[in-house]
């Protein structure tokens, strides 16, 4: 006798953007394999159209606060804000890729664009997941797509090495995450985040049980790998350097946004009442992450590697928000993730723009004299660097300000002092790029600078404009971020 099967309530409206994105991915795949279009940019344009359409449908869900698919999907402001960030990341990445495919024709394929979209679908489901199982499946969708994308330069040994390294270590980290989820389930008896919050609230003694604490620790390990938290950061420089530059920008911002969404959903809300020594663990991790990232970035000669270490440091700043806890810190994290998307993809976009056939410019010397030769490009790079360093009036400054002020309100003064010291250290290596660009004679070898395509102009322009808007008129997005925090219903 089979048990009665009850149909779950299905509300497709809640996942409409993700459905549209997936359809676009399938369409691009078919269009490419049947050879329906001949123009070089056609695939990218189809993808772009689909993504922009999906982004627009996102707005139809504004202000919703409900669960769908029997609690699997949480449709709230938090998922709306992060989905918006992820769609922006996707749009910027596609725009930058359209230029990048001029020197790397290999990436102009249906597989590239559909993998890009599938990775973004995984990210947006991670942001909307209300259940640990869906969170895990979404994380895998994102990770597997990105493993392939990292190795997309099939003839480049560095790229293949990066892909293999990321795949092996990522698979290892994922097993930690899964075991952590299993322990959390064992301790609380539920996979559902809202039920788990409820359970912890009514049974606070579970917080000190060994099963629960090992679950927390293992989950932190798995997610810490994804955000390259020290001491799980070893893969970051090699993978970021070997991956195609546009993908580096995509994974640095998108994966971080998705993984921090998971951290907020699991750690800040259900575990918000953890005993103090547990936030001390994150405290130490945040300080180490910032310091290690910034100190090693000081001595890097390759700009891509320098940005990889700076990515580690930024994960540290974001972790300050996780330590601080509370709704203000959540809003700060959301705001920072949005700014970080603009400035990081922008910086990697500039790197992807400078290259000649099949090679990329990477070392600091190759940037010398660039700022005077190409004033607009130099200005854009300067904006990205100032923003990454956190200098007003850019968005990077406002993001740091919101996170730091939330941490001070929660009483973590020393953490903020260390964070501010780290920002000061980081100014050295960000400004070094600007110094080299403006105050050094250009090298003997002339930099081959291809004519800027409309796509890259639009992409970099959007990123720079986004940074300035977030820095000068932060109130609209700050209010949006404050209304988007995750509070259990």
């Amino acid at each position: 006798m089979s048990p009665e099967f009850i149909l779950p309530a299905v509300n497709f409206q809640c996942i409409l953007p993700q459905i549209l994105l997936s359809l676009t991915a399938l369409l691009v795949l078919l269009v490419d394999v049947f050879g329906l279009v001949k123009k070089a940019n056609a695939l990218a344009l189809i993808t772009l159209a689909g993504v922009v359409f999906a982004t627009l449908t996102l707005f139809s869900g504004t202000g919703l606060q409900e669960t769908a698919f029997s609690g699997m999907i949480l449709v709230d402001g938090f998922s709306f804000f992060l989905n918006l960030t992820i769609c922006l990341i996707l749009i910027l990445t596609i725009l930058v890729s359209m230029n990048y495919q001029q020197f790397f024709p290999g990436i102009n394929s249906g597989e590239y664009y559909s993998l890009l979209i599938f990775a973004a679908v995984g990210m947006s489901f991670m942001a909307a997941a209300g259940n640990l199982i869906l969170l895990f499946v979404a994380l895998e969708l994102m990770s597997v797509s990105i493993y392939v994308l990292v190795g997309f330069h099939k003839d480049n040994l560095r790229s293949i090495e990066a892909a293999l390294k990321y795949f092996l270590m990522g698979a290892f980290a994922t097993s930690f995450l899964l075991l952590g989820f299993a322990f959390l389930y064992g301790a609380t008896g539920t996979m559902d985040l809202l039920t788990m919050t409820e359970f912890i609230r009514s049974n606070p003694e579970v917080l000190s049980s060994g099963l629960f604490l090992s679950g927390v620790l293992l989950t932190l390990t798995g997610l810490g790998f994804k955000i390259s938290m020290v001491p799980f950061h070893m893969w970051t420089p090699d993978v970021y350097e070997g991956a195609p530059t546009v993908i580096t920008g995509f994974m640095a911002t998108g994966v971080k946004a998705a993984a921090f969404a998971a951290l907020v959903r699991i750690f800040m809300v259900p575990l918000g009442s953890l005993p103090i020594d547990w936030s001390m663990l994150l405290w130490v991790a945040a300080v180490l992450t910032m310091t290690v990232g910034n100190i090693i970035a000081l001595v890097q000669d390759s700009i891509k590697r320098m940005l990889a270490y700076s990515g580690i440091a930024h994960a540290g700043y974001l972790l300050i928000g996780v330590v601080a806890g509370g709704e203000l810190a959540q809003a700060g994290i959301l705001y920072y993730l949005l700014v970080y998307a603009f400035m990081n993809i922008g910086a990697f976009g500039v790197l992807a723009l400078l290259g000649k056939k099949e090679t990329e410019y990477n070392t600091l010397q190759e940037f010398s004299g660039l700022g005077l030769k190409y004033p607009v490009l130099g200005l854009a790079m300067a904006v990205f660097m100032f923003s990454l360093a956190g200098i007003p009036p850019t968005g990077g400054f406002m993001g740091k300000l919101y996170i730091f002020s939330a941490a001070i309100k929660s009483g973590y003064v020393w953490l903020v002092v260390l964070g501010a010291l780290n920002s000061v250290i980081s100014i050295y290596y960000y400004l070094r790029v600007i110094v080299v660009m403006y105050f050094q004679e250009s090298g003997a070898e002339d930099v081959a600078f291809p004519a800027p395509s409309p796509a890259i102009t639009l992409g970099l322009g959007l990123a720079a404009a986004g940074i300035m808007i977030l820095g000068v008129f932060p109130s609209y997005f700050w209010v949006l971020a404050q209304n988007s925090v995750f509070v259990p219903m």
Partner: protein
Amino acid sequence: MLLEYIPILYLMLVAIGFGVITVILSSLIGPKKMTREKAASYECGLPSEGFQYFQTPIKFYVFALLFLIFDLECIFLYPWAVHYNQLGLFGFVEMLIFICILLVCYVYVWKKGALEWD
């Protein structure tokens, strides 16, 4: 409640017992003649042939992987078929969509030439 698991315990005991008893019996009553082949490492009773290192065509790998993927997707059809009557038209359409997505992948694999042997 734990009593419900007693049959599984029996099954485990029978399985372990079967393995242990066969090994003991064959070592007790089997004839023992040592030959050169049997003394070789990794012996299977036959003289080993050819080189240790030789190339296997990667085609097998692609085929096996594709088979595995499409085979696994079909597993999802079983629970659906069991509950077909209760799911009704809605379930039917849902499964159609699922199969359509599979079909897109199949067409992609086919057009990409992954099913060509040469």
